[in-house]
Each structure stands twice: as structure tokens, then as C-alpha cells.
């Protein structure tokens, strides 16, 4: 499985391929999804038109799409970065919860600070919390060779239940009778709205900045190059003197931190209270976002915006036209399937054969079978 994902995730060598492939996957998924919608008794084109309209047609709709995209971009970066170092971070969900917890603690715990100090502190706390949660699988992988896939999956449960315990117990807002959530973080730690009409908060700037920094880190810094070298060939990297373990831990800390920021952005920007149901599976959708974004930070931004819009469109279509939620989830799944299928052996083999054939032609005639 790892090899398949590796092929599917690997940044494409040609720019054309890196744009065409995700687009073709999306179109293919919409096509098959259309058939499903038709079978369910709806008119596909009508549904798609309505989805598009509600996702980008109005300032409010666009605002919801962008707000959806914030945690998806951040958590998507949290998958993409470790992946470039050869690691699969399935632990976004746990990192999101722990990051959100740290941010909430700093948000609630400090008083009387101006926003210019309180908010950055809370964001940093969220990054640190997620980073710590990523450091565990990173160091177990580097030191003991444990599969980061298994460890991150398991830590999702641990992270979730820690938060669940806290919001039902010690951190529960005493004045909220029915709900198990914390008190509201003070306004000094909240991400303010930057476009009031569309209700877009500062989190989108945080997400764009995180993508820009991730891109710079990977492409233009020594630790980023080392991470990519390890991802491209751990043995060669070790042979060349790169400390593979250090790169492994670093990439998981950064990945976890970014996922932690995703949770933080949801709490500080949208919900203001930590609960144990605030993440609607962002950590898992993030894997799809990273995949469609070809694990490049810039690609992840576009993929995150796309998925944010898709979610918004589907939700609206469900509300106004009554299409089943299953269709929405199926669309996401289909896009992923098409991405992976597009990378699958047949296509790659076909491309490779063409290349080798060209190389061999000049040297000697090959006797073909039969």
C-alpha cells in the first residue's frame, strides 16, 4: 500500500502532468458521481450547478467555502510535509485535537493581554501541541523503527479521548448545562474576521502563510532538502551523511504542528470553544487534500480550497435539494479513487514503455515475440 500511495502522492515531474492529473480525476469523479445522483433520482447537472452557485456564487457562500478550507489546508500540509520525507502521517486527527487543546488552554489561561500578543501565543501553543503529538511517532520511527502509520492511527484515539475527558470533566464550562465544551476563549485570543460580509477570518492568512513557509522550507533550506533527500532514498541519504532519524523526527514535528494549527484555527476562528466533536474528520480529509495537491504546499492550498468548496456545495445541495449526504461523501471518495487509479500501474507502465522503446530503438532492433 505504501508504494501505491507513494506513486500517487509523488510530486509529478512535469508541470502539465501535475495539473492535468488532478483535474482529470475531479472530472472523472464528477462524471461517475453524476450517474450516482441520477440513479438516486436527481438531475446531476442541476445539482452541480446549485453546488457551484452555493460554493462560490455569493460572498457568504464563498466565505463558508474559504472557512472550510482553512483547517483542510493546514492539516493537508501536515500530511504533505512528512510525506516528502517518506512518512505517512495518518495522525492528523489526533494532532488536531491536541493542538486545539493547547491553544484553548493558552486562550483561556491568560488574561489581560492585548490581541497582538495573546493570539500569536495561542497559535504557537496549538502548533507546539500538535508538534508534540507528531514527535511521538516520529521518534518511535527514527529510534525503534516502528511504523509511523500504525502509531499515528493509534494516537488519534489517545488524542481524541484526552480531549473528550477534559471537556466532560475538568475543562467543562460550568454554565453550559447540556453541552460538554469549554468556556469561550476571550476575544483577545480569537482570530478576527477580515472580511466581515463574507465572514472570513484571519485563519486563511495563517493557512496561506503556513503553505508559503512550508514551500520555502522544502525547496530552499538545508533541513528541507535533507527531508526530501530522505524521502527520495533513505539509504542514499544516510550514505551521503544525512542524519535520517533527525529528518524523520523534524518532519513529523512540523507535520503534527501544522495539523495542530488546523485544530487551533477552527477553535480560535469559528467555534471559540473546545469540544470533542469540533473536528469533522479534518485529519482524514487532509490525506485526500494532500493527495490531490500532489504533496506540494502550493498544490495543497488549491486542493484545500477545492475540498472546502465541495463540502460547502454538497451541504447546501443537501439542505436545499435534499440529495443524500452519502452522495457528498462518495464524491470525495471517487476523486481519491480516480487520483490513485490515474497513477496506477497501467498508466505508468505505458509511459515508461514509450520512453524505453524510444531509448532502445536507436541501439538495436528488438525481435518481438511472434
Amino acid at each position, binding site marked *: 500500500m505504501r508504494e501505491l500511495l507513494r506513486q500517487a502522492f509523488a510530486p509529478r515531474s512535469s508541470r502539465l502532468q501535475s495539473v492535468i492529473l488532478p483535474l482529470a480525476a475531479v472530472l472523472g469523479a464528477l462524471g461517475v458521481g453524476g450517474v450516482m445522483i441520477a440513479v438516486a433520482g436527481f438531475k446531476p447537472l442541476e445539482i452541480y450547478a446549485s453546488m457551484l452557485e452555493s460554493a462560490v456564487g455569493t460572498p457568504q457562500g464563498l466565505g463558508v467555502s474559504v472557512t472550510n478550507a482553512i483547517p483542510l489546508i493546514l492539516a493537508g500540509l501536515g500530511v504533505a510535509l512528512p510525506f516528502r520525507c517518506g512518512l505517512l502521517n495518518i495522525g492528523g486527527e489526533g494532532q488536531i485535537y491536541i493542538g486545539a487543546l493547547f491553544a484553548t488552554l493558552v486562550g483561556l489561561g491568560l488574561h489581560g493581554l492585548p490581541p497582538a500578543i495573546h493570539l500569536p501565543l495561542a497559535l504557537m501553543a496549538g502548533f507546539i501541541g500538535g508538534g508534540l503529538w507528531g514527535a511521538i511517532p516520529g521518534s518511535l520511527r527514527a529510534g525503534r523503527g516502528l511504523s509511523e502509520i500504525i502509531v499515528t492511527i493509534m494516537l488519534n484515539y489517545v488524542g481524541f479521548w484526552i480531549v473528550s475527558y477534559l471537556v466532560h470533566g475538568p475543562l467543562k464550562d460550568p454554565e453550559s448545562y447540556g453541552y460538554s465544551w469549554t468556556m469561550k476563549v476571550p476575544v483577545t485570543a480569537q482570530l478576527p474576521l477580515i472580511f466581515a460580509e463574507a465572514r472570513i477570518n484571519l485563519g486563511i492568512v495563517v493557512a496561506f502563510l503556513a503553505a508559503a513557509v512550508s514551500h520555502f522550507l522544502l525547496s*530552499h533550506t538545508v533541513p528541507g532538502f535533507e527531508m526530501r533527500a530522505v524521502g527520495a*532514498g533513505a539509504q542514499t541519504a544516510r550514505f551521503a551523511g544525512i542524519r535520517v532519524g533527525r529528518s524523520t523526527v523534524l518532519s513529523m514535528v512540523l507535520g503534527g504542528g501544522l495539523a495542530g494549527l488546523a485544530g487551533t484555527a477552527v477553535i480560535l476562528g469559528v467555534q471559540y470553544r473546545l469540544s470533542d466533536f469540533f473536528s469533522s474528520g479534518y485529519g482524514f480529509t487532509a490525506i485526500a487534500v494532500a493527495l490531490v495537491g500532489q504533496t506540494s504546499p502550493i498544490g495543497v492550498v488549491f486542493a484545500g480550497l477545492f475540498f472546502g468548496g465541495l463540502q460547502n456545495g454538497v451541504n447546501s445541495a443537501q439542505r436545499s435539494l435534499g440529495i443524500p449526504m452519502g452522495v457528498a461523501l462518495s464524491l470525495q471518495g471517487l476523486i481519491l479513487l480516480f487520483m490513485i487509479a490515474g497513477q496506477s500501474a497501467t498508466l505508468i507502465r505505458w509511459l515508461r514503455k514509450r520512453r524505453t522503446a524510444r531509448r532502445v530503438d536507436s541501439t538495436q532492433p528488438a525481435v518481438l515475440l511472434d
Partner: protein
Amino acid sequence: MPALLSMHGITKIYPGVVANDRVELEVLEGEIHALLGENGAGKTTLVNILYGLAAPDGGSIRWKGAPVRIHSSAQAMRLGIGMVHQHFMLVPRFTALQNIILGAGSERRVWLDLKRAAQRVRTLAEQYGLEVNLEAQVQDMDLGMRQRLEILKALYRGAQLLILDEPTAVLTPAEVEALFEVLRRLAAQGHATIFISHKLEEVLAISDRITVLRDGHNVATLPTREASQPGLAQLMVGRPVVLEVKKGPARPTGRRVIEIEGVSVEREHGRDRLDGISLHVEAGEIVGVAGIDGNGQGALLEILCGLSRPDRGRVTLLGVDVTDTSPRRIAALNVGRIPEDRATMGLLPRLSIKENLILQSYARPPLSRWGILRGRQMGEFARRLVAEFDVRTPGVELAVENLSGGNQQKVILARELHHDPEVLIVANATRGLDVGATEYTYRRVLEGRDRGAGVLLISSDLEEVLCLSDRIAIMHAGRIMGVVPAEAADRTRLGLMMTGTPLSALEGG
């Protein structure tokens, strides 16, 4: 005797390498046919094609006289071709019997008729002297029994031709003898065997005929009684083209840049171990390490690169004790290393030529400052090396996997040689390269020596060692059989030493 199998003009091309180039193989009924060649000579590719695991790019196969195309191993089995892989394909927690009938079924399709299956297996086992405990779980068996089980599995499926890929690699000497006894009985009853090996003594002991492959080509097919160990060694490692390399006399300075003292590595099953190796290289000379693959060269290389540690002994590079060190410390010394396996140790295939070229220098000025890579300087650096080392490429941003083998090698050479290292460790550097790229590599290595580097050249290609070395050390079974000056080296004597005769014995007799 009629030909059971004939493979004609088999060609298989992998990206960047021609694994089989118009290879011919003919196996007669009741024959034990040895397929001999170095690692990478194309033996495994050839039998994978026969067993339906790889599709040939050219050529034809005839089985019992009729042309066949084999698409899958299931089809190969139906034809009567069985294969025992180097790594056994058994389910550890199943019993021997369960493993045998796994996928083969019994006569009744849905329900397993274990009793009848067991009876058939027992008859087969007795017939060929294959001693296997059918009730035991595979995980409790020693490797010899697992191998007999694999053979039994193939026979149960009706194999008339058995392919054994390096069957002795995992066996003790006594088990090897038992295996040979089985093979002889199989042959006596008309079964044919393709016996893949690079161990000459075993090939001579068991086979009827020998086909030698080298670099994907047929070198010779000859009856075993006409073959000798030194003769076969030369066929395996020699080169068809004598390369013209101009080589001046060495000027060793007397300063020992590599010192290996009494280094031993213990290994399970005695493969690729080292047994008290001592060797030194002075600045300004090339010391060649010759020998047939698998006689300890790999272990020696790993130790010199910091990838593994010896159990005993001491290794010094440029006066620094590197016995217990990391690849990182060695990479930090002024050492150039040209590894054996370009794809997994030398290069990062998916990254660009530029990124592969900076792999040893990215962390220092001028290529980076305060942890930030400097794009312009990196580009200039890469373009300079590409020009200087004549890498044929449209640009430095191209992924290195798109280059031909020869150009990939030039990328490694450029990276490892541009800073004039004082020590150069070269391992089978020309494997899979064409003559032009080979010659280029030789010239660069010699230039390194003439600038004063001490070169350790590990190669299983005897011609290569003879062509480049100033002194030659010959390895066999983890020991150095002797060290001779290149002028005094003579192929016959080297061949004898490569197969286990120490220099002292040659000089005594």
C-alpha cells in the same frame, strides 16, 4: 536426447539497462544445466521470463518442441515448469502438507481431500529421497528442509523442469550434499534442472552442462567435463572488449590513507563474511580487490562506508579511526565513494541532477548560508560539474532517473571527485555500463590516483582490476588469498586464488 526447453534470442530491457541481450538457453531432458554468472549478469531475469514473472521484449521459447508464450507462473506450472526462489515462498504457520496443497488443490475441487493428497506427497517424497516432516509447521523447519519442501511442492504440481535460484546460498555444506543427491535422483528419472549459481565448485560438482552469462549476454555453453574453475572464472568476469587505458606508473607516497587491520565480520550461514582481513592503501596507488561476488567484498564495503561495524579489527581512513563510526563522519572526511548500487546508494533517482550533485556540499558555503540554500550558486555549481564531467542532459533540473546508466554514473563521479578526495573507494563502478562510460570511469579514477588519492577498487570484474590496479588483493570466502603487484599478476594464478588457493600455496608449489 531431445531438447525439453529452448529459449532463443531472449531480450529484456529495463529502463536504462539491457538485462538480457539475445540470450540462448537449451535444456535437455534429465539434464542438470547450470546457469552461471555474476550478480547482474541476467540469470534471474532469464528464469523469471521462463517462469512467466517477466515479459520478454524479444525472443521465443519452445517447450517440448512447441512454441509457447508464458504469461504467468500459473501457466508455467501447468506446462510443467517449477521454480524454487532464493527466498522461499512458504506460509510459516502452515504445515508442510498445507503449504504443498495450497493453491494446488486436490482432485475433488471444493473439499480438500487431505488424506489422498498426503498419500501422493509421501509417495513423491520417497521416490526422490526428499525428507520432509509433513506435519511440522514451516516456521519450525531449518532452511534445508524448507528447500526440500519447495522442491516437493514443485514436483507435486507436476514439474518436469525445476528452476533453482541460488539454492545453496542458505545451506550448510552437509545440506548442499543432500540437495545434490536429490538433484541426481531427479535427473535419473528424467527431470531437468536449471541450477543458478555463481559458485564454481558447486557448478562443476553437480551440472552436466554450463551456460555462462555476462552483462546480459551468452558467453559460452559447454559440457561440464570440459570446464575448469579458472576457465569458468575468466568467462564470468572477463570482458569482451579490451579497454585501452593509458596508465602511467604509480607514485605511492608511503602515507597510508586506508588501513584495515584484522577485520572480521560473522554472518549467519557464512555468507559474505570477513575473516581477519588486513590491507592498506597508500596515497597515490590503486589497490584492487578481486574475487567472485559474495566472498566478503560487500561486507568490506559496508564497513568502509560506516554502514556496518566489524566484530573484530580496526579500520583507519586518513589517520582517523572509523571502526565505530557513522556514515556521516566518513562523509565528512575527504573521501570519495562510488558505490556499487547506483539507484539505492549513489543517487536519489526522483530528484534532479542538481540536487544529486549538491548532495555532499549543500550544507556549506557557497551553496548555502545560515541554513538557506542559494539557488544561483547551486545552479552554477551543478552546471559547472555537468560540463566538466560531460553529463549529457538537456538541463540540471531533470530528474536523474531519466538519464542513461552511463550519465547517472557521471553524476556520481562528478559529485564524488570534484573536490579532489584523498581517498577514493570504488565498488563495481562499471557494472551495467557500456564501453564508453566504462572507459570514462577508468580515466577519472586514474586521474584521481595521479593527483595523489589512494584508491581502493573493489570489483568482481577481473579485467577491470587488472586494468587499473597497482597492487591486487584476491578475496575468497572472507579472506585475502594474497596481494600481488599488478605487473606480476597472471590470470591463471589469479583465477586459482579467486577459487580458494592461497598465494603461499602457489609459490610453494
